[in-house]
């Protein structure tokens, strides 16, 4: 393998270099220059993110274990973007209470991103598993990052236990698939997979394993506690980037490797989607803590994302990627505002948000846009994302599923409006005082708002994703 071949692995190589540079830089920036160190790291991640948006030629490496095509590139670019935004939002936390440990945080974050890159690009179940573990284990450390808080430690333990358990389930499924096909390459498995009980069991275990990562009902029980206990930036990362990566690889595997078992996994997903959306919504209705609320709403959102799986034409994968992109902007805008409030005032109850518009109109508007986008209200991006997901399902003729999903999106509108109501309509004796968020937070919120407002109006983006997805579909 020559150097030029290796360079095709551009995204991961850049991330690894960034990782090493940051590791070394961490030693040289002393305690008095931590802010500069943070800025330096953010700039590095920014460069990686920008470069990942530049088109690259399709390549296959390591004897077919690693593949990067247009689809994978877009997916990785979205994940990088999400990480960059999370890093920006973590600024006042990293430069404040966690000042001495910002290096650790950034390193762990980047390692998970590398793992996700390999996971999304894998064409071999071993590569996939390595990527998955690399993406998961540092996350447990991140969840337990606030060492002085028992809740954070609890979140870390819960996360690692369930991650290990789900990996076990997944591996068990993989071993059955291996027993059936005698190979771990996606291509070989695709050719040899059939509807024998072994393959069926393997598929079900595989879906269950990944369902833990995406927190699909009934594999969601860890989500709320971990999301609540973990530092808020980590929660944002878990609910957006980590979830997005798992969705992407599940999409790739189901739509390539197991495409011939369509009749089997369609009904499974059908049931899982209905359960996920409905239960996610019902739990979100009752939450008073903003972090928990966003956790449950993100469960429901995951159910919506899965809708796109029920379409094996280009439209299905395209809408999934499109929605995840929109979801990155919308959910991170919501988390951004919640983070800003938490950093500033330490408050994270929904009732604390009362009268927020009177004191902080701009942040309230950002939060409102985020809520509308998550609920799917036009003209913001979420509407287009959801509408296309419904279109994808309707193309297959599953109108009943569309109906169930749209009715659920109205239920979700109720609790998203509760946040808007608290900020705009309710009055409070002691609202959160007026404050200015710091520069990185502002940048991240501005990027999110631009994304939320403009994605729908720029129709070319979706057309581009359709083209990308048609490559991906034609590979099969």
């Amino acid at each position, binding site marked *: 393998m020559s150097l030029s071949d290796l360079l095709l692995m551009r995204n991961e190589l850049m991330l690894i270099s960034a990782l090493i540079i940051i590791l070394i830089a961490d030693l040289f920036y002393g305690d008095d220059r931590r802010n500069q160190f943070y800025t330096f790291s953010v700039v590095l991640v920014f460069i990686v993110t920008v470069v990942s948006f530049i088109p690259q030629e399709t390549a296959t490496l390591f004897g077919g274990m690693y593949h990067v095509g247009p689809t994978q590139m877009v997916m990785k670019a979205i994940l990088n973007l999400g990480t960059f935004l999370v890093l920006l939002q973590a600024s006042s936390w990293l430069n404040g209470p966690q000042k001495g440990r910002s290096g650790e945080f950034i390193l762990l974050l980047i390692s998970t991103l590398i793992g996700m890159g390999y996971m999304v690009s894998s064409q071999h179940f071993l590569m996939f598993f390595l990527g998955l573990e690399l993406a998961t284990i540092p996350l447990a450390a991140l969840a337990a990052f606030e060492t002085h808080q028992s809740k954070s430690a609890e979140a870390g333990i819960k996360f690692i236990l369930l991650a290990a358990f789900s990996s076990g389930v997944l591996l068990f499924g993989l071993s059955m698939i291996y027993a059936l096909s005698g190979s771990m390459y996606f291509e070989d498995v695709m050719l040899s997979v059939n509807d024998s009980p072994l393959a069926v069991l393997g598929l079900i275990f595989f879906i269950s394993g990944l369902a833990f990562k995406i927190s699909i009902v009934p594999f969601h029980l860890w989500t709320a506690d971990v999301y609540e206990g973990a530092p808020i930036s980590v929660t944002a990362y878990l609910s957006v980037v980590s979830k997005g990566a798992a969705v992407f690889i599940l999409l790739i595997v189901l739509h390539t490797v197991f495409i011939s078992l369509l009749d089997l996994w369609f009904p499974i997903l059908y049931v899982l989607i209905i359960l996920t959306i409905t239960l996610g919504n019902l739990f979100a209705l009752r939450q008073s803590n903003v972090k928990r609320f966003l956790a449950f709403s993100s469960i429901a959102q995951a159910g919506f994302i899965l809708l796109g799986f029920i379409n094996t034409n280009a*439209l299905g994968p*395209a809408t999934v990627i499109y929605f995840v992109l929109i979801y990155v902007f919308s959910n991170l805008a919501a988390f951004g505002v919640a983070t800003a409030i938490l950093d500033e005032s330490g408050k994270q109850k929904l009732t604390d948000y009362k009268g927020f518009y009177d004191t902080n109109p701009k942040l309230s508007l950002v939060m409102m846009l985020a809520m*509308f986008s998550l609920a799917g*209200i*036009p*003209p913001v991006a979420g*509407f287009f994302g959801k*509408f*296309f997901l*419904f*279109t994808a399902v*309707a*193309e297959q*003729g599953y*109108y009943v599923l*569309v*109906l169930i999903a*749209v*009715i659920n*999106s*109205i239920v979700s*509108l*109720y609790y998203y*409006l509760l946040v*808007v*109501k608290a900020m*705009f*309509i309710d009055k409070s004796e002691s609202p959160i005082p007026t404050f200015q968020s710091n520069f990185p937070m502002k940048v991240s919120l501005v990027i999110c708002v631009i994304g939320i407002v403009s994605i729908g109006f720029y*129709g070319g983006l*979706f*057309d581009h994703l*359709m*083209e990308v997805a048609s490559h991906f579909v034609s590979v099969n």
Partner: protein
Amino acid sequence: MGFNLNLLLIIPMMTLAGILITKDSGKARVVAAIGMSVQLLLVMWLWVAFAAERNSGNEAEVLFLQDYIWFKSLNIHYAIGVDGISVGMIVLTGVIIFTGVFASWTLKELPKEFFMWLILLSTGVFGFFISLDMFTLFLFFEIAVIPMYLLIGIWGTGRKEYAAMKLTLMLMGASAILIVGILGIYFNSSPDGNWTFNILEISKTTIPLEAQMYFFPFIFIGFGVISALFPFHTWSPDGHASAPTAVSMLHAGVLMKLGGYGILKVGIYLLPEAATAMADFFLLFVGIGVIYGALSAVMQNDLKYINAYSSVSHVGLILFGLLMLTKTALTGAVLQMISHGLITALFFGLIGMIYSRTHTRIVGEMRGLLKVMPFLSAAYVIAGLASLGLPGFSGFVAEITIFIGAFVHVETYYRVFTVIAVASIVVAAVYILRVIGKMLMGELKDETYKQLTDASWHEKVVVVTLILCITAIGMAPFALTELIRSSLEPIMMRF
């Protein structure tokens, strides 16, 4: 004579931007008034341009067409154009948003935000009426609904939070049902996979009967909820009673008509066979709604509730006319959309003005208003008479056309419902005359009422504009009926 329909969206947008940059929140109303006056002139010009174009022999189904590709891969276009029906509705919207701004002239609380949401709402309505593509139609529909939540929630009265949430969820729930119908039409719009959302293109093909029967209920109920279709009308009384004056005007005046317009343009036009087959079934609910709304209005004491229920009844007549599926009845239905829009806006405007003086909306607590505020009281009498269908006002023209169209059907089933619908007019006389007698006539309630003032200049603008429109249609309906009848031609061709 050309006309750029995008202007109808650009002017409200510019007004929004103008309000946003005003520093002094007192100036917001001035900017809004200027913007909406320009918009009113613009819609008048649209009417003139449309008539001129028709007179010069342009028989195209839709005029001033513009078409831009938006999402190429799904064949979604931003396609706009108007026919006579849309022109009528756009003029109505222009008049009502204009009067709505003046009706909120003395608003104290957060005026800047209020006008921004109000004008955003009207932008959605204008966009809805010029859309030819079901995707944009749906998009504008939701844009018109969602500002309602904050408008009622922040500036409303009474149980505003409950009413705002109920209204928003029910209307958005309706739009959820609508999505299924729209997607169903989309995926049946072409036998060879060249699906389209464009209403004009779909009207050239015939959707398979099975699909029509499956999706017509989604379209009818989805649009019907916003037209207060029984039993989904429950958002309407609470919503209207809690909303601030201008919002009630706009909502009862224009938004409730989106439903009727949508049923006509999507349901009846694109799914004619299903509409014929299912008219009997839905007529049952519409008939109940018409008489139920009227009877409920009799039992109410709160002025706003009386009018909200009367709106349920009168908007029910629109749906009733639509379901008759004869040309005359359809013309009447569209006339009723415009007529009821003007009358109910006048009603809600007047109620707001009276409430701001007497601080009560309960009929029994007011007496002898005619003596202290003759202008407002006389206007209230005019609104009442127009509403119960006195000849000379627009209500008569619309309702008589609907009933003539309905009597074309000779089956007993239809006859029964027509008689029920006509009976609602009699009931209307009861609740309207009762209010006029109790509230306006008689001796003054007490000495404090002598302090009450009559209408101020901005209130007169509202009242005079609306009364002028109501009487103009009542006296000379032909300009409007011709506009509507010629545009119904393509729809009738489908039957």
